[in-house]
């Protein structure tokens, strides 16, 4: 599903955010990505979404080399990926409902479909009563959950979530990871960046640790088979 081969990413100012990253995630996997602040986790996800292009190496997602995508194809490529952004990225002038519906509208979904799916997913993240609010009138955790609902509403084949529980209390964080696990069991590949080690330990999925742009650990934390990087 996601394949990084000798990927290197330098930002415009010469900063090397990723260095020789090799990572293979199969269809249906659930992977935690952990690492210190500034390690390069978000950069990794940005490469998957083609928000940034790799400086060297190849990134293949769904058997597509992201660097080879033509401009016209990018939107369709992105629709197959659900994203929870670290900074939420809600559209400020649309209500919560419209923000979630937007991800369906871009796919030309029929109104009936939108009317059914949007309330369902808002309910799933516990925001059914906030549907008509504007994002700026939500608490931090609520915004984050809207972002999650938007990522899920399309039933994407790949879900990438950048600290989706960073602003959410522990109890609800567990619920959300449970939810992601549920979705994962239904066939969606999940990549989730998190700082909350308790979560990682509790759910025991494959965990990739990044430090200073390099993958330093790959495998279950505390037992399980760790595939150490060469």
């Amino acid at each position, binding site marked *: 599903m996601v394949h990084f081969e000798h990927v290197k990413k330098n930002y415009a100012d010469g900063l090397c955010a990723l260095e020789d990253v090799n990572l293979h995630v199969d269809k249906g996997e659930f992977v935690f990505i952990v690492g210190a602040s500034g390690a390069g986790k978000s950069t990794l996800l940005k490469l998957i979404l083609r928000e940034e292009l790799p400086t060297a190496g190849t990134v293949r997602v769904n058997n597509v080399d992201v660097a080879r995508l033509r401009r016209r194809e990018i939107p369709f490529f992105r629709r197959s990926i659900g994203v929870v952004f670290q900074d939420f990225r809600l559209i400020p002038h649309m209500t919560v409902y419209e923000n979630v519906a937007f991800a369906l509208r871009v796919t030309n979904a029929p109104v009936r479909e*939108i009317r059914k799916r949007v309330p369902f997913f808002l309910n799933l993240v516990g925001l059914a009563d906030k549907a008509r609010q504007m994002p700026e009138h939500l608490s931090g955790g609520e915004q984050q959950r809207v972002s999650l609902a938007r990522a899920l509403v399309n039933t994407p084949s790949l879900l990438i979530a950048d600290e989706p529980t960073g602003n959410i209390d522990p109890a609800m964080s567990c619920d959300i990871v449970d939810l992601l696990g549920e979705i994962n069991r239904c066939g969606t590949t999940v990549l989730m960046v998190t700082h909350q080690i308790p979560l990682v330990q509790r759910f025991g999925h494959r965990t990739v640790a990044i430090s200073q742009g390099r993958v330093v650990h790959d495998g279950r934390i505390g037992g399980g088979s760790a595939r150490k990087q060469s």
Partner: protein
Amino acid sequence: MRASSLSYLLREGMRSIFKNRMISLAAIGVLVACLLLVGASHLLTQNVNSLVGYLESQNEVMVFLDDAAKGEDLTYVDTKLRALDNIASVTFISREEGLKTWMEQLGDDGTLLEWLVEDNPLQNSYRVVLRDLSRMEETLSQIRNIAGVETISASREMAQAVTSLKDGIARAGFAVVVILAGVSLVIVANTIRLTVYSRRKEIGIMKYVGATDTFIRLPFIAEGILLGVISATIAFLLLWAGYTGFVRWVQEGSFAWAGILQSHIVPFSSVASRLYLYFLAGGVGIGTLGSMIFTGKYLKV
């Protein structure tokens, strides 16, 4: 495109205008101001043209007849003259009338010419007013070919002056409208650029969620069209009110020139529909193009 998307687009366009009242008002203000400028200079050109048309009608050609031409010959010349297509009016002035007018013009000194009544040195003549001064030469040669016509006296300089004046005004008017339209375009384009710029984040987000360029653009375009229509209508109504007020002021005015102005002012109704059409085309065109061009820059994410 599905009906659902279409309704979404229209709804988005409209809602955006109301939601971003600030920006919409700014854009409408700018567009209205520009349309007003262009419209006002168009009306001005039209009025000056109408005035020059009056000046032109004041120009005349004197056609002097052979002394031999009498009775039937005169009718013949008359018919021939009236048959020419570039001629607005024809007035016969007999040699007797001519002398009388001349003597009157000289005033007191005119009595000195009384002895001339016996031996009138003048000729029968026609005062001919041309329709189109620029075709003067052509018409003069046609008149010259009529049997019975001896000489023609025409003020070629005056004709040239009026023609070149008309020409100059047409050009200047065109230039002013074009320049103002250009300036308006710059201003409106910049406003739209600012509008789009202030929403660049939003555009980026849409792209990351998988929206195609068209999908992002359409609400902007819908908004542009709507803004164009609103601005055109406001500008049209303002110009209407302003111009009507101006016309009333002129009509009631008692200053010199008022007479000429009063009878040659262009009524608003005669340009209204065309003006509104121009405004609509301009407003919608600029709104649409502006939204299309300037979204482009932020679509590349």
